[in-house]
């Protein structure tokens, strides 16, 4: 169940260019939060930034009842969030949406493919998969060296390939180049990143089972306003709400 709670910022770090990691301490139990779900944060007041901002849950610490978020400053809302300091309270809807359904998944070797600010949700996923004994390989793509984060964090759970557009860190190229060049063995893949990347990955891995996480501008974030719909791929004229039915979908479940 989604609840609205005030969460206190207990840690804040710059981890890459314009990229901030924050730990938020909950006032209501966070145990149900799953990898792939997001929080919907009120970054304004009644006149500025009317709409909440969706940010993925990058990690959950059940002992401390904190969640970690990682966000990139791209506009007024994330800029506002950047200005918050340790000790500030944030008004957050948590947890929102449906995460990666790994509980009942017969996965043994997982491939995680993340792009840019789509990387954060994969971290908590990697951690959970690793805990369940699933072998994890990751491919993370960033624009350039300055944008790279969490390389060593992902390496804790298995091998991690980093690519950058300009080769300034790791391999030069796209995440799909790694798929071409390395012979990675996996039974399920999980991907999150820009739409272009998700399309390329879905095409390349079209015969594989996998899950992708997508994004869209949101109004309510809870399924009431129909701002964030995406058509399903089954020609039935059906649709899914990204905020409620997603943001995680089976590959090819929805039209990218």
């Amino acid at each position, binding site marked *: 169940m989604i609840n*609205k709670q005030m969460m206190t910022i207990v840690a804040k770090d710059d981890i890459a260019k314009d990229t901030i990691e924050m730990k938020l301490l909950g006032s209501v139990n966070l145990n149900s939060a799953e990898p792939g779900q997001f929080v919907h944060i009120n970054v304004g007041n009644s006149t500025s930034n009317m709409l909440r901002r969706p940010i993925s849950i990058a990690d959950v610490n059940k002992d401390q009842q904190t969640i970690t978020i990682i966000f990139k400053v791209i506009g007024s809302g994330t800029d506002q969030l950047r200005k918050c300091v340790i000790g500030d309270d944030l008004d957050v809807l948590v947890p929102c949406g449906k995460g990666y359904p790994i509980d009942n998944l017969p996965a043994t070797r997982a491939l995680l493919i993340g792009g840019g600010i789509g990387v954060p949700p994969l971290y908590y996923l990697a951690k959970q998969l690793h805990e369940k004994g699933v072998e994890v390989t990751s491919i993370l793509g960033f624009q350039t060296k300055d944008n790279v984060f969490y390389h060593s964090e992902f390496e804790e759970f298995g091998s991690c390939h980093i690519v950058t557009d300009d080769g300034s860190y790791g391999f030069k190229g796209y995440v799909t180049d790694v798929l071409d060049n390395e012979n990675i063995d996996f039974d399920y893949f999980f991907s999150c990143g820009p739409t272009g990347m998700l399309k390329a990955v879905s095409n390349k891995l079209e015969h594989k089972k996998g899950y992708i996480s997508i994004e869209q501008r949101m*109004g309510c974030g809870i399924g009431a*306003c*129909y*701002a964030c719909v995406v058509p399903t791929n089954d020609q039935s004229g059906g649709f899914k709400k990204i905020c409620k039915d997603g943001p995680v979908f089976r590959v090819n479940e929805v039209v990218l």
Partner: protein
Amino acid sequence: MSLQINLPGLALKNPIMPASGCFGFGREYGEVFDLNQLGAIIIKAATKEERYGNQTPRVAETSSGMLNAIGLQNPGVNNIIDNELPFLANYDVPIIANVAGSSVEEYIEVTKAFTRTSTVKAIELNISCPNVKEGGIQFGTDPELAAEVTRRVKEVSHVPVYVKLSPNVSNIGAMAKAVESAGADGLSMINTLTGMQINLSSKRPLLANKTGGLSGPAIKPVAIRMIYEVKQQVSIPIIGMGGIMTAEDVLEFLLAGANAVAIGTANFNNPFICPEIIGELPGVLTKYGFDSVEDAIGKGHEHGYTYLSRT
């Protein structure tokens, strides 16, 4: 303190209801708070057939507001009656059905369909949709078309009809009077102002639909002005809306002449906004010297001007 208000077809325990399109069919918010607290619920627009609506992005944020171009996505009136209304029937809250269409016939058919349920206590006639037959002119911007659709819908409706006025008009009073003479039981105002945002990076309108409806506190002064203006020209009750964020805002609408209010965009910012405002309203009414909601309605039209004072 009594927050009760009686309007045609609607015995409201309080004057607060979520606005159409901002609350779906109540299910999601029903998981967040007890819907029984609400004065009424205005459900999402119904059309005859299922509609997918516009392409995404469908929302954009603006200064003190937002744009939306959902495009009347809904499962069609029959699905709404069969699959959504039974859930709402569990609550002791009057349901108002927002009826949309792109021809007079469609409005009539949707309204007729609603006669087969007793859950719907009133119709909110959404005349901001373009009239396809007349070449895309909005029913909501032409007094004659608006009167015509009102009259025809009234003929088939078994419940009172509130006509929801568009603010994108030169003369809101003329629109209000036209639908009043055509038999409207009440008015609902205002719908969104048409707006646009252009994305600098993509160099095109941010919304896939290009234009969208502007809502939120940005439009409150326009809503207050239009309600104040219309209140002086008609005698049917008004459900006011447009930018309400606080119980003080509700009182401002009551003073302008609204008999009840609807809350749209604010739900997205704070899913608890409706029950919170209901809780705060008695205190605000008391603070400004009112004993009931009834007491405050239209009171902004009476008093003389009092000077500023910084004591």
